[in-house]
């Protein structure tokens, strides 16, 4: 959840450091090799443990549990539900943040400190507190009753992903000269909507793409809000399955790990196109 600010600095530092890295003193020191070997073992051990549990009945290798886990209608339904929330929140977040960040950058730079504060607030208000607050305002005893409405979960997810989404888009906006682009477009007779959609959006597309990927990944793995609001999303279903069908659940853990891999690789691919877009999200 944290780290996007520092990680942003990191990625830009990395590109400048690329040239320096090759210039080591020939052979890497033995201690660093030892550390890296131990780290790799540490990294893979829990996956090995999960795989050993998911793919064997004690002695025999089997893919039966993976097949059962994957074809279980509840599992499929929960993956689809998670994906549905992830897609809708991602769309809402990008559509709300991108034009607003652009307008603030262009016309109201004075609002920037306010936005900086608001977008760092979700770090201070982790999901568990956000859920309590949302329940108080929109729950059974709340001021507005939104119990059972998916709008509440999407709204909560919007708040949760706001720091990543805003940071990724804002970094991209700062990397291009928004003012000059806008003035050029306007002097050629383009209206504000056209300028935004045809000039600004294409020039910050990598930022938007990585914002979308970060939001999507975060929500696919989100447990706290969904479980406390009673939605059987993928992580919630996984948690419920473990007690009764733990080998199937273990094989789904590996599926979830693959999803994490794919999103990290996708982010790295996007970042390769634009170093300013590189960010790290960690969803708790």
């Amino acid at each position, binding site marked *: 959840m944290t780290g996007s600010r520092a990680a942003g600095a990191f990625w830009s530092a990395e590109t400048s450091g690329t040239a320096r890295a090759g210039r080591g003193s020939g052979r890497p020191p033995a201690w660093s090799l030892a550390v890296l070997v131990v780290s790799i073992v540490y990294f893979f051990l829990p996956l090995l443990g999960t795989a050993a549990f998911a793919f064997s009945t004690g002695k025999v290798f089997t893919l039966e549990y993976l097949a059962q886990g994957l074809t279980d209608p509840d599992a499929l339904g929960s993956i689809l539900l998670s994906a549905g929330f992830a897609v809708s929140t991602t769309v809402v977040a990008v559509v709300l943040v991108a034009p607003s960040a652009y307008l603030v950058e262009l016309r109201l730079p004075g609002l920037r400190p306010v936005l900086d504060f608001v977008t760092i607030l979700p770090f*201070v208000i982790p999901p568990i507190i956000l859920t309590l607050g949302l329940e108080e305002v929109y729950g059974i005893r709340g001021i507005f009753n939104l119990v059972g409405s998916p709008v509440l979960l999407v709204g909560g997810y919007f708040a949760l992903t*706001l720091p990543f989404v805003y940071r990724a888009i804002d970094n991209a906006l700062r990397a291009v000269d928004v003012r000059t682009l806008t003035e050029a477009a306007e002097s050629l007779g383009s209206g504000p909507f056209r300028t935004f959609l045809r000039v600004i959006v294409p020039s910050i597309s990598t930022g938007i793409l990585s914002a979308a990927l970060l939001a999507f990944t975060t929500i696919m793995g989100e447990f706290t809000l969904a479980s406390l609001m009673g939605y059987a999303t993928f992580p919630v279903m996984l948690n419920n399955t473990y007690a009764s069908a733990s080998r199937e659940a273990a094989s789904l853990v590996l599926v979830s790990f693959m999803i994490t891999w794919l999103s990290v690789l996708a982010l790295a691919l996007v970042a390769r196109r634009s170093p300013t877009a590189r960010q790290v999200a960690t*969803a*708790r």
Partner: protein
Amino acid sequence: MNATTRSAQRAPTRRRGALVWLALLPFGLAILLFLLLPTLSLVWGSFHLRDGSFSPANYTFLLSPDQIRPFQNSVLLSASTMLVGGICGLVIGQALLSSGSLLVRELGVTFSSVAANFAGVPLAFAFIATLGVAGLVTRFLAGLGIDLYGAGFTLYSMVGLATVYAYFQLPLMVLLILPALQAMRREWREAAENLGAGRWYYLRRVAIPILLPSVIASMLLLFANAFGAYATAYALTTGFLAIVPIEISNVISGDVNFDPGQGDVLAIGLAFIMAICVVGQVWLQRRTSRWMQR
């Protein structure tokens, strides 16, 4: 004449200004409804009793022995995983750079991103399959004659939870500290060596003073990261460990032992600790950014 032109020019500008605010409205409304209002509700609730009267009395609840314990546990959990993750992450980060290979470093960053994101329910279950009673490593060690659970270890305890948290804390530290490590110029070391500094002297008088603020800033984020984490702890222990996020979830699920105001006070207490970490991190990061330039 002059004045009319000026006012004619100003009118569209003013209208445009109003349009800008109008365009910002949906974004502002979403933030107000789903971030600010819930936060304000917690603050308001923490200062009001069940009957609606204003009182700071809820806050004395934080000092009751029953509520001090979750905070102690959470601090212990966050501090231990911050130190272990922080120190190991620092060493691994330096090892990635010292390897001198761009490929190794890129792989290290990718693996770290994956591991830092691999948290919550899947991580808890992966560790049950690995270090649980019948886990892979537990059985392997038993084969060597080492009885983990006989020696008093259990995954479903504070120590167990800290072990699991380390799995995402450590790679997060690698990601956070790499830029600072990369910003260390080779020239500084050479200059120090030319002036007669040994390896230890360079570390003590140059490297550590430069790196320390970044290390502390990153560790503050690790602390906050562990302090607010809920999913992993819940999945591993089904909610019986007394840490702050679990206590708050009990309030949400309608535990009758809690007043609403008491739940709010717990949340404010948690948010307060998170705020200290985030503010400290931002402040230190700003101070160190001058080393990171160029």
